[in-house]
């Protein structure tokens, strides 16, 4: 808030040479005035949101808008849909994911035209990198590069919802528990849904197995696509394998935390929380040609042969595109 006051507002006085100090002075004074009004308000027996609003009256405009938004959220006046998706929150954290997208992982996204701009669709992607960063980057690529951007919803490994904060942030940015019921309901509501059929097997695989797609579960995602007649969009992600090169596991600790795996990487748990910072590999995301499922009809979901055939087709497409993009990317970290 203070920084906001410094950069955007306040009368400018003094010569160029004296500006930094003067501006800092204005900022500090603005903050002081804000705190004074806030305290006066609270002492006068006003509730916190009201007191904050009064305090904000003394601030420059940019900061005032920020405070107004914060007060509104404090009063609970914001929207969440029935899944708990909070668009305002998603916009708020966008700069962070944008930084990861542009600067940290330097993502190149191709084939965005294959993502339908409206109506239901199921994005099927390969999964890697311990934490669901790949899901957030797929979302960013659609928000950044798609002509009609929209927030995809993604099915996240269940145990992430046991974790404090992570569970809250996930649901606010569009994550749901990986359950077929959720996928069905989301698709029936014409959402864009991302799934990772490899699940834990993909996210927790060793570094030496990188970019080798694991088994695609039992093909549940194909059944869902068939039942809802949603097109399948195979999506290949390259780069996520290098962010946490997993060299081993500590099964004892994973049992302690109830997590499916407790990874050991060159930096984790050696460096503690710092080891959770993902390595800055270069990423590529390719959305492939959609597979139309409407021609089979919803009854085809019970046809095991067809389900396996489609599942295998999607898997092979992704595997092939992963190899192509690996070649196109070149060295992992440059």
């Amino acid at each position, binding site marked *: 808030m203070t920084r906001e006051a410094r950069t955007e507002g306040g009368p400018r006085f003094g010569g160029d040479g004296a500006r930094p100090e003067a501006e800092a002075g204005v900022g500090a004074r603005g903050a002081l005035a804000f705190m004074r009004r806030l305290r006066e308000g609270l002492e006068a027996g006003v509730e916190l949101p009201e007191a904050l609003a009064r305090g904000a009256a003394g601030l420059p405009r940019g900061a005032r808008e920020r405070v107004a938004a914060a007060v509104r959220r404090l*009063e609970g006046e914001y929207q969440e849909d029935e*899944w708990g998706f909070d668009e305002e929150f998603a916009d708020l954290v966008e700069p962070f994911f944008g930084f990861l997208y542009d600067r940290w992982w330097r993502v190149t996204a191709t084939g965005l035209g294959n993502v339908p701009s409206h109506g239901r669709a199921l994005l099927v992607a390969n999964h890697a990198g311990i934490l669901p960063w790949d899901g957030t980057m797929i979302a960013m690529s659609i928000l950044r590069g798609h002509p009609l951007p929209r927030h995809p919803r993604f099915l996240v490994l269940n145990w992430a919802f046991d974790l404090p904060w992570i569970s809250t942030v996930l649901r606010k940015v569009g994550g749901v528990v990986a359950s077929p019921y959720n996928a069905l309901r989301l698709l029936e509501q014409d959402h864009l849904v991302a799934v990772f059929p490899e699940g834990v097997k993909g996210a927790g695989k060793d570094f030496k197995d990188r970019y080798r797609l694991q088994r695609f579960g039992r093909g549940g995602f194909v059944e869902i696509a068939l039942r809802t007649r949603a097109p399948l969009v195979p999506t290949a992600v390259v780069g996520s394998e290098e962010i946490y090169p997993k060299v081993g596991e500590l099964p004892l600790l994973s049992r302690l935390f109830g997590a499916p795996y407790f990874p050991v990487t060159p930096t984790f748990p050696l460096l503690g929380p710092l080891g959770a910072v993902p390595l800055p590999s270069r990423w590529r995301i390719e959305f492939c040609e959609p597979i139309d499922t409407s021609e089979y009809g919803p009854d085809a979901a019970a046809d095991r042969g067809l389900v396996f055939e489609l599942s295998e087709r999607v898997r092979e497409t992704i595997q092939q595109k992963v190899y192509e993009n690996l070649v196109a990317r070149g060295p992992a970290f440059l």
Partner: protein
Amino acid sequence: MAGRRVLITGVGSYVGSCLARSLERDPGFEYVAGLDTRKPARDLERTDLIEADIRNAVISKLIPNTGVDTVVHNQIVRRPGPGMSPRAMHDINVIGSLQLLAACEKSDSVRTIVIRGSAGVYGSEPHAPQFFDEEMTRLFPPRTRFQRDVAEIENYFETYSRRHPGVTCTMLRYQPAIGPSLDSQITRYLSLPVVPTYLGFDPRLQLIHEDDALDALVAAVHKPVRGAVNVAGEGTVGLTRMVRLAGRPTLPVVPALFGPTAGVAKRLGLLDFSEDFRRLLRHGRGVDTTRLRETVGFHPRHSTVSAVQDYSRKQGGRRIAPVLRQVMAR
């Protein structure tokens, strides 16, 4: 055709007495009986009050004499009242339901049973699908005593309706109700001066407004359907958002300390969270209400969010927590 004859258990509660009042004003009902040991919360005109304990076998003699064709079972306790032990709550819920069914076995006239059950039967689970539909009761093992009780009650009624194909049993699975006139766990929780939450958790809750809770019961009495029906307002609300809408400050508590803290607060007489409610505060729960809307044909007027807003609007006059006042009065 003669009007319907209805018996309401738990008529002493707010919803029970409102239901009795609504049915006695309906000319389609020629006889309304209310069973409870408590006095009704509202004044009733022509309801025949039967003062008996539902746990007692004597109701097997009383109910057949009334000749009712419809039984509304509204005595499933979600929150132990003052001076009620968990044991007594279990007895009322399970033994009470059994005695009621025994009484229904004895009376030939019963054609419809509507039960005000609980969506607690699904549990509160971090890995649960975001919306339970009526078929999903067995996705997770029951984890709390109340959940086991509700599952057991549902089992009894299911068995009963299988034995008596002529009787329609409607099991209404209610999400927690909220409203200015109600004294429920959720309203108690929201009237605390500082509302404790689990640090780092902000689950989705789904609620039903007290008016809709009553109207859903009336709708089910008018149009009973076989089997379970979820009853809840549309949409969900994040716990933090709900507390903020109610104008309360939150106090995030480290999950490991939440149970002990609640225990201490219980001993001080400040609050009493059931294990069920604690799980709800940590993991939340949502249900699918398609069946309520399409089969029963009931559309709740309030969504979850508007129910909370209505509650906090009507509560606005007395922001100072009643609980705090109680403590001060001691």
